[in-house]
């Protein structure tokens, strides 16, 4: 996936490599895939999944990503542009589940079938929704951490971007898990905005005011690793969990630095979302909603996640449907 040309300031090289990248693809349906940004590894897994599924089914994908990460106006513009382009179908992750509704309605208006993945849009009509349940992921991972700590200890939560759907649900899951464990004490809940550095600094600061921290609940893996670095920097130990199941997290779990990570399984989300889009185009039956049941990646089960992205293959439709169809 990654290429190692050491080229600086090569907009031209970009153009070339770019056109090649999109130029050589199988014909058949074109699926426009919308993701939030090109910086967060998770959405890369979604994109790879979508590509894999399309490849398998002989369709082609076009990716639309805001140039400014998570930019609402940009994704709206991209929708408007794509509607002109009229792809066969759209696989859609809203950068904001509420603010994007008008965009979705534009797509509906253009009668382009659209599948909603990852963040459940607050409005508009979709073929189906494919995602993981952030709440139960948060709940599951938090429970696992508390179980490891024997249901007690000092806990801090590092939140993601305020107001983002994922963050709200994940943190709600964390808190509910904490309610189940009266022995555990929540010391602080501070935002790290899904950012590595901010999480690290928040953690460093919290360690100053709290001499004993036993568990860290981070709303994504980047922040979890940030927290881990902070702990190591201070030569302190604490159990840390994150969410998303990125390669980085899996490695950390393997190395015993991170306790666990909730598997958000972007790859499968991308796969299944795209499969549904294509199947419906081909008049094959689809399901209205697939919410992947939460799996917690731990020392016991990390092996299956080590396999590099581009080696993975999409589940068959039957498997996919089983993954949590309702």
């Amino acid at each position, binding site marked *: 996936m990654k290429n190692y040309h050491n080229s600086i300031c090569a907009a031209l090289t970009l153009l070339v490599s770019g056109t090649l990248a*999109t130029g050589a693809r199988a014909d058949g349906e074109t699926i426009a895939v919308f993701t939030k940004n*090109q910086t967060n590894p998770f959405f890369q897994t979604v994109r790879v999944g979508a590509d894999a599924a399309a490849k398998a089914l002989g369709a082609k994908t076009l990716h639309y990503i805001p140039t400014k990460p*998570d930019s609402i*106006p940009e994704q709206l*513009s991209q929708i408007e*542009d794509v509607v002109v382009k009229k792809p066969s179908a759209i696989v859609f992750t809203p950068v904001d589940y509420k*603010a994007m509704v*008008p965009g979705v309605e534009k797509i509906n208006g253009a009668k382009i079938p659209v599948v909603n993945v990852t963040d459940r849009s607050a409005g508009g009509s979709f073929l189906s929704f494919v995602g993981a349940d952030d709440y139960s992921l948060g709940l599951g991972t938090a429970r696992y951490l508390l179980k490891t700590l024997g249901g007690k200890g000092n806990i801090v939560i590092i939140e993601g971007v305020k107001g983002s759907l994922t963050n709200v649900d994940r943190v709600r899951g964390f808190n509910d898990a904490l309610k189940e464990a009266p022995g555990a004490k929540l010391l602080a809940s501070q935002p790290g905005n899904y950012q590595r550095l901010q999480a690290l600094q928040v953690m460093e600061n919290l360690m100053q005011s709290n001499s004993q921290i036993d568990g860290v609940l981070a709303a994504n893996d980047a922040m979890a690793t940030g927290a881990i670095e902070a702990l190591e920097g201070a030569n302190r130990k604490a159990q840390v969990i994150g969410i998303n199941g990125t390669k980085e997290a899996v490695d950390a779990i393997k190395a015993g630095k991170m306790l666990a990570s909730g598997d958000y399984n972007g790859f499968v989300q991308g796969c299944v979302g795209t499969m549904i889009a294509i199947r419906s185009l081909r008049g094959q039956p689809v399901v209205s909603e697939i919410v992947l049941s939460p799996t917690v990646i731990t020392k016991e089960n990390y092996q299956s996640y080590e396999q590099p992205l581009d080696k993975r293959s999409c589940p068959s439709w039957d498997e996919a449907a089983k993954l949590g169809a309702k």
Partner: protein
Amino acid sequence: MREAAALPANPLQRIPGVAIMLGVLVVVFGAIAPGFLSTANISNVLVQSTILMMLALPMTLIIMTEGLDLSMGAVLTLTSLIVAIVSLATGSMLIGLAAAVLVGLAFGIANGWLVAVVGIPPFVATLGTLGVAQGLSLIVSDGQSVVGIPHSVRDIYSATLFTVPVPIVMALVSYLAFHALLYHTRFGTYIFALGGNREALKYAGRSPTRLLIIVYAIGGAMAGVAGLLMTARMNSGHPTAGLGLEFDAIAAVAVGGTSFERGNGWLLGTLLGVVTVGVLRNGLNLMALPSSIQVASIGVLVILALFLDGLRSRL
């Protein structure tokens, strides 16, 4: 025509860089980007450019006074939220707009006051108010989107006037208004003087302080109007929606050939600059090139445009 003032003397140099680039882009995309020249798409590009336009117009005036307004994006975000919250509470789009414009105005006046009266460099003053506006946005919304606002708001964005989308009408009207203001009124003349020779203005018995405050206030008010468009477009208010737009606006103004020195400004250039950026993004989307190329090419566009202008001025 007065705006000839901003163009170089030599007729060979009269075609500014931005016009060349826009021309090239339109031709190239027209040739290779499917559906680029369709009316639907053209109106797309224009509608998409309107919000930036609303910021770039006053930004041109502010830059002509050798100033800068970094707070516009954040203020736009705040006013957009205000529109959402107020119209949600009152059920009236107009009250929402009024409130937004007032808040924008307040920030504009604050900027003008800090710059003109307190004497803080514009960059610093507006970077400060940027923080304030951004903070307020987060506080009033507690970081959440504001939804469920009355349809009267979103209709602004989707409605058309004689088949022309209302946002385009608004942008055009504002352009004409700013054009008239800058080239045909006393106030416009004084804006040239604010950047060109403030002393002269003093000796002419006009208070630069008051004028400056007005210029920044206009910027704030326009951010308020743009806030309405932004909310209408998202049919919701969002605490980060407009962050960073000020830089896009400044870039568009610079691409449009307005220099940061001695009150040399060109309003039409700003219009072209905004459209050029819009066309570039739209065309690349239609060609479905990887987003990373889009990112890089925006930078290249900005640099190239200024490079071309530099070349011409040295001919």
